[in-house]
Each structure stands twice: as structure tokens, then as C-alpha cells.
């Protein structure tokens, strides 16, 4: 079964894991959302600078496994420059893909496609989802005009 192991830890994932994007703190925190995966202990903090309805900068700080770090790194990479709506759509696509409910990852986001291997490891789906669910919660708060920290997001319900 080394095969499915290699499918989980694809090279792209290991690359994001070894050198995660979004390490640099953002200058202005418009969205701040913390998440955790209670069954594993993963913890993540996502901070976003917004500019005219668009994600200008993202900082992801994840204490977690290769999957959650890689997923957070991809989030930092692929959400920058996107509108709120686009980001939510993307998060939804990732979520559906991870849950096997559709896997239409646009070709320009091929790194994300590498997360697919997680589907064979049900317990790890939560790790891959963590960053995305945490961000979405932050976005919701932002849209509702709330400032400050969102309530802690948990992946317990998922997968």
C-alpha cells in the first residue's frame, strides 16, 4: 500500500509542506480566524488583508501535519488576488473534492488537485479541510461586518 501513501504525500504536497507559502505576517489584519482539528490537535491561524473586496495578502500559521500545512500553504498561494466570492467558491470546490462529491479542480490550480489523495485516508480529510474552513468562517464574519477574532472553527463535524 506504499502506493496510496505516495498518493497522500504527493511530491507537490511535500514541497508545500517543506516550504509553506504565506509565512510572512500581514501588515493589516482585516480577517482573523483560528481553527483547530480537535481529534488531531492541529491548530491554525489565518489572517487576511482585504483591499476593495479582494484578498490582498494572506498569512497562514499552522501547527499541524504535512497535509494541513500543505493545504494551508496552497490556500495562501491560491486565494491571493481573488474576490470574496471567488475564494468562497474555491473553498467549496476544495471541500467537495476532498469529500469525493466532485473533483473539478480548474487546471490552473493543479497543486490543489494533489490533495485528492487524502480521500483514501478519511481521518486526514479534516487536516486538509482545516485551513479552508477556517478562512471561510473568517470571510463570513467579514461580510457580516464583524471585526475581530471569529469563534474557533472546528473540523469535528466534517468527513
Amino acid at each position, binding site marked *: 500500500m506504499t502506493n496510496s501513501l505516495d498518493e497522500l504525500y504527493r511530491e507537490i504536497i511535500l514541497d508545500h509542506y517543506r516550504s509553506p507559502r504565506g509565512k510572512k505576517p500581514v501588515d493589516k489584519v482585516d480577517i482573523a480566524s483560528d481553527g*483547530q482539528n*480537535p481529534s*488531531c490537535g492541529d491548530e491554525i491561524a489565518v489572517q487576511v488583508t482585504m483591499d476593495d473586496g479582494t484578498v490582498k495578502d494572506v498569512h497562514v500559521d499552522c501547527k499541524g501535519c504535512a497535509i494541513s500545512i500543505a493545504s494551508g500553504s496552497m490556500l495562501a498561494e491560491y486565494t491571493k488576488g481573488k474576490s470574496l466570492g471567488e475564494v468562497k467558491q474555491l473553498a467549496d470546490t476544495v471541500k467537495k473534492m476532498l469529500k469525493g462529491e466532485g473533483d473539478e479542480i480548474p487546471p490552473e490550480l493543479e497543486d490543489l488537485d494533489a490533495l485528492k489523495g487524502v480521500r483514501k*485516508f478519511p*481521518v*486526514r480529510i479534516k487536516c486538509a479541510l482545516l485551513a479552508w474552513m477556517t478562512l471561510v468562517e473568517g470571510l463570513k464574519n467579514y461580510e457580516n461586518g464583524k471585526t475581530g477574532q471569529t469563534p*474557533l472553527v472546528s473540523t*469535528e463535524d466534517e468527513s
Partner: protein
Amino acid sequence: MNPDIRNDATALKGRSGQMDIDRIKADFPILKQPVNGHRLVYLDNAATSQKPKQVIDAIVKYYNESNANIHRGLHTLAEKATSAYENVRVHAARFIGGVDNSEVIFTSGTTESINTIARTWGEKNIRSGDEIVITEMEHHANLVPWLVLSQNTGATLRRISLTPDGQLDLTNINDIITARTRLVAVAHMSNVLGTINPVADIAELAHRRGAIVLVDGAQAAPHMPVDIKQTGADFYAFSAHKMLGPTGVGVLWGRKTLLEDIPPFTTGGEMIREVRFDRVTWNDVPHKFEAGTPNIAGVIAFDRALSYLEELGMENIRSHEIELSGYAINRLLELDGIEIQGPLDPHLRGGAISFTDAKIHPHDISTFLDSRGIAIRAGHHCAQPLMRTMGKVATARASLYIYNDRMDIDALIDALKETRRYFGV
């Protein structure tokens, strides 16, 4: 593994939707064992049912192939165990009419299910002056928790009384379920009288009065189709061991909005989201209510019990029991001095048939029947107040299930006749 073990019961449905009792009997290893030199006639199903080999095999298979603690592990066994366990939740949700999976909580049994609500919803919502309504036919499990709660809070425990034939007397129900009522706790089917209660009507009234409704389904879930939404219940409780499943497993179903609103019952591992030394946040339902390592093997084997029942068809099981209860009641009534408690019309009742002999104490009946291989129950059946209401200290109770047939009833009747001769009364 024994090659003759059939892994499904699909073939058990006879033509015309009736059940092939001989084939069912063959699935239950314990029924092949003679008791006191006689064929075992097991008529104590309201206490606990026997288990088909499919369920027993499921336990063995779990321990041999996927035993691990659930929800916490990243290794293969833990994943197998976790997904098997969670699949039973989905299955149980479907079995009771297609409710939301997250509304299904696994407990150790009906008793724990009901106590969970009494000590969470109850302690949070019941105040001095409030009223809790039960019925006179409740099992101690659906009586004592409410008695204790009312004693501790200063609430009043009120009760719906019975008609002479053991049905709920609803004539003055509007005086009992009132604006002061906060909770109505009622058995779906009585374990003593067999009576099937009109829970939907009671729930409708209770809801109009602003009360919530807990239904004790310990006897109903094993014996008739239960669609929880149709019962109108807000909470519904039942036990696996009375429906072919293992001991130590129960279900508590609750409306999600209610479950989310109340604190957990027991606390510990798995049911928290985050804990520090000075604060704690709870996990989501249903996990909030499942602290610690559950009865994993039991829950996983319960799946097979549900499948077995589904393969027979709950409608067919109900029809079978109507038919067989009718036969049993008629034959019992042929006997001199035998009095049946509860409704005589089998359409109004399940297959738990309590009776008394004017001259012989139920214990003596039971002991004598046992010497003939016939297992019935004698005593108060955990319903002491009901016994008092009926003016009995105890009853004898024969209770039916899927593997019983007319031969079993005939054996019962013959032995009862012999009992009278034996005691010389």
C-alpha cells in the same frame, strides 16, 4: 468459520410476506440447546431477545479484524473501527424513519438514554411548580428519573391513569397536560400490558401546551415499524439488546435543536472540542453526548441486528406478532382462572402478555414452566406502581418475538395446565 453460517437473512421472507419461523429459529444457536431436558421455548423477549448467529459473528469479526479505539486513531484498524461505528449511526437513523444522523446518540441502553435527558434537559429546564406527566404503566426507567427530578426541583409529577383493560385513560387528558406541563414521558408500548399508546396524539396535545415529549421506545422499536417523526417525540429511547442486538448498547434520539441547547451528561474524552484547566468547549452533537470509549463492538454488531430486522421487514414482524398474540391470548383465555392484564385485541397491543392465575403465584408458574424448558418472566417487571394500581404483587409474562410460533404457545398452554395439576389447586 462454520461454513453453514448464512450471512444474510434475505431468504427469510416467505411467500405472501409471511415469515418462515423455522428458518428464523435456525439462525439462533441458543434455541437448539435443550433446557431441563426440553426444547427451549423462549418467551422472555420483553426482558431481552436472543441473538442470531449473524449478530454474534459480527462481534467476533470485529474483534478478529478491526478492533481499535475509535475517532482518535490514524492507523488502519482505527479507521476501520471508526467508519464501521459511524455507519451504524447512519443505519440507526434510517431505521427509525430517516432522521438526521447527528441526532442519533449511542448510549448503554434505554435507561441511560432517559437518564441523560432527565439530568441534562431536565435539570436545565424544570423548575419548582412545573409539571412532569408520566403514565401509570411506565417502566421504572421512565418513572424514577422523573420522580427524582421532580423531588429535586420541586416540580410535580402527574400521571395519566389507565382504563380497566390497560389502555391510557385520556378522558381527562386536558386536565393533566396543561400549560404547566413541561414534559410528557410515555412508553410507546408497555412492557407489562403490551398496550401500544397513542403517542402522536399525546405529543400533539403536549406540544400545543408547550411541553416536550419523551417516548420510551424500548418495547416498540423491536416489535413494530417506528417512524420517529410520526410519533411526534422530541426524544426517543430504545435498547439494542431487546432487538437482536448486543447488551450494553442503546439509542437516544433527540431533536438537534434541543440537543444543541442542553449540556452534556457525562464528560471526558471525545466529547470536548477544547479543554484547558479553566475552561472547556463541547464537541458538536452527537459527540457531545458520547464521552469516553463507547461499546464499540456492541454498536458495530447492532448494525447486523438492524439489518436482520429490516430483511424480515418490521411490518411483517408486527403482523406475525399480531397473529401470534391473538392466538396466545385466545388459548390463555380457555384456561380456568387465568386473567390477562392489558388489552385483549392484538391490534391494540404488542406481544408482551401478562397474566395471573387466581390460585398460583407467578413465581411458581415460572419455576414450573422452566422445568418444562419454557422461559417466561414473573414479578413486577420493573413496574411496581403499575402492579399496585392493578392490585397485583406480580404477574407472569410471556412475551413473543420473531422466532416464536404456535408450537411455542401450545407448549406454554399445556405446561400451564400441568402447573395447576402439580400445585393441586
